[in-house]
């Protein structure tokens, strides 16, 4: 739809009202984004921080031809899928329980939101301590119960699992709250009608609950995927910056390390543009395919 001069004139007041937000958005989102695009074509690094120049597609080619990118991309996808699966499954399961008339409902609801309320930094470092293979609470418990010692933080997949467990613990309350909101908006009449028709618990879940919480869950899942894909904090803090041996990285933690530890700014900028494109294509297709933007009623 074209915006004509007439439209702008007619809505002048609305544009004036939105102008401060637009200016702030331009300053904190649009400008850094455009600057990042420029940097991605440059040789900016520690030796060329002020005298950088445009070098074309070199950084993009370097990123794509390195095995690091493909390895961390695969790991990031795995990380995202496992986390979001557990966030949604646990979140919806708990929301279904909390939606019933159970005793101490508000107490349980508060308790289950707690992981979300604790600062991520503290959660991550606490879990890291609990994963120490000799002295950590989790390791001691597993050792007492099953007599095995798991080297969580010193092996590649042990550290990955530690990050996943921490992030699942942190992430399910959000999905639970969203699902609970969706469940509470479903009219009781629908369940009553289903009861009269003799529908089982499974049929009601499949034909009433899931379709009706879908409009709130799909955007939440989309957000969950993007947040998890870019969840730098947990991976960085639990694995202490990618340990062991820089194997416990997802794409964003590797970008951070390249940019702010190795100061390979051009390379890191190109890397981040590739991630941006991946997420843009994914989100666009996901929302389109799931029709999340469409009205349900």
């Amino acid at each position, binding site marked *: 739809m074209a915006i004509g001069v007439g439209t702008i004139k007619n809505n002048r007041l609305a544009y004036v009202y939105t102008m401060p937000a637009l200016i702030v958005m331009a300053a904190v989102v649009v400008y850094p984004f455009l600057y990042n695009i420029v940097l991605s074509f440059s040789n900016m690094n520690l*030796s060329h921080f002020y005298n950088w120049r445009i070098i074309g597609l070199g950084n993009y080619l370097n990123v794509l031809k390195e095995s690091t990118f493909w390895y961390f991309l695969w790991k990031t996808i795995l990380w995202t899928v496992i986390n979001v699966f557990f966030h949604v499954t646990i979140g919806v399961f708990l929301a279904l329980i909390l939606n019933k008339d159970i005793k101490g409902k508000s107490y349980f609801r508060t308790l289950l939101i707690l992981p979300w309320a604790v600062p991520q930094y503290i959660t991550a470092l606490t879990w890291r301590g609990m994963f*120490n293979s000799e002295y950590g609470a989790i390791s001691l418990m597993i050792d007492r119960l099953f007599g095995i010692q798991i080297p969580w933080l010193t092996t590649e997949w042990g550290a990955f699992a530690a990050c996943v467990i921490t992030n699942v613990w942190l992430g399910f309350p959000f999905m639970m709250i969203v699902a609970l909101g969706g469940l509470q908006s479903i009219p009781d009449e629908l369940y009553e009608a289903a009861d009269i028709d003799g529908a089982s618990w499974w049929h009601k879940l499949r034909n009433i609950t899931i379709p009706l919480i879908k409009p709130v869950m799909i955007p939440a899942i989309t957000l969950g995927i993007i947040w998890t894909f870019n969840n730098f904090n947990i991976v960085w803090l639990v694995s202490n910056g990618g340990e062991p*041996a820089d194997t416990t990285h997802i794409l964003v933690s590797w970008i951070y390390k390249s940019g*702010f530890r190795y*100061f*390979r700014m051009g390379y890191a900028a190109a890397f981040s543009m590739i991630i941006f494109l991946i997420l843009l294509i994914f989100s666009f297709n996901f929302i389109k395919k799931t029709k999340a933007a469409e009205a349900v009623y």
Partner: protein
Amino acid sequence: MRPLATKILQQKLEEFSQKHPGWKFAQLFYEPETARTNYIISAMGGSGPALFWGASDNIGPLVELKVIKPLEQYLDAAFLDSFITEPIAANTWFQGHLYQIADQVGNHLCLVYNKKLVPDPPKTMAELRKLGKELTKDLNGDGKPDRYALAWNYTEPFFAVPFIYGYGGRILDENNQPTLNTKATIQAAQLIYDLANKDRIIPLECDYEVSNALFLDGYAAMIINGPWSWGTYIENGIDIGITRIPQIDETGLWPSPMVSPLGYSVNINLEGEKLMVALELLKFLTSAEVELQFTRALGTIPSRKQAFFDPSVMQNDLIRSSIYQLEVGTLMPGVTELRWIWDAMRPSYQSIFTGQIKPDQAALAMQQLAERLITENRE
């Protein structure tokens, strides 16, 4: 800086602020790597703290990124002459300019031992191994050691480097090129691997926090740590002794920790009155009186001649032992290449302890990565 150090610093800032009404002085504490990154980002953005405190190996990157100010024009010769030049030069010059004024020297790793558990510390690695077997104990009878002879952050390259020098190696040459793929690196890595996996006298998994907690709780009889930690041990009532990291039997050499001055650099963005106040604060924090307060509480080696030669310092057993280790230390170069060498060492070195690669493969891989990082950043 650790809790006790930040507490003293806070007192000193409050004292200084009384003489400068209208100005506010606050401190921000981060771990060294994070502090450097955060400072660089903020200073490049035109703000950031007035003073940046850290080891002198930060100077190279900070100068290249133009985030700290040359100081020689603001400080007179008499002031600069009041700092020690032996056993190491306190103030840091880089590319012909003065960039850091130290409030202490050393920053070096030593063997710290709990006198209650170790009356006579080991002098050689053979002695350490022998003593280690006696000290490492299964206290609760579950078949696993609860107390270890020694704990330290051995998976961090900075904490492994003394042993490379102890085997006669080094990590960079006169031209600032990496020298990691050597027999010494392989032997040093093998030694540490064996202490954990063969001798079992150090924990299998041990980062800085874990090793510190073990030593504080009496579950490690000895620890390899630096001056920043001693105050906490003393404050917690541990009767500590300090000595050199045990000699390498094969070479007869002492492991040589990196040594460096620690001090203050000034933010490039400071001008006018703010700069003058920051310089006054720098002079105050590096005064002999203030340095001695830190020394008495933390056992740090002061940088000011008047404080360094103070009888309370010269007669202090901990400081004398610390200087004894310092004498066999290696001055940490301030060049930027060292940053890339640390970064290159970490992944391969840590892979040894996960069993992914052998020490000889790790030495080759870290050399290659160091060369690549230097080339990529210098081209």
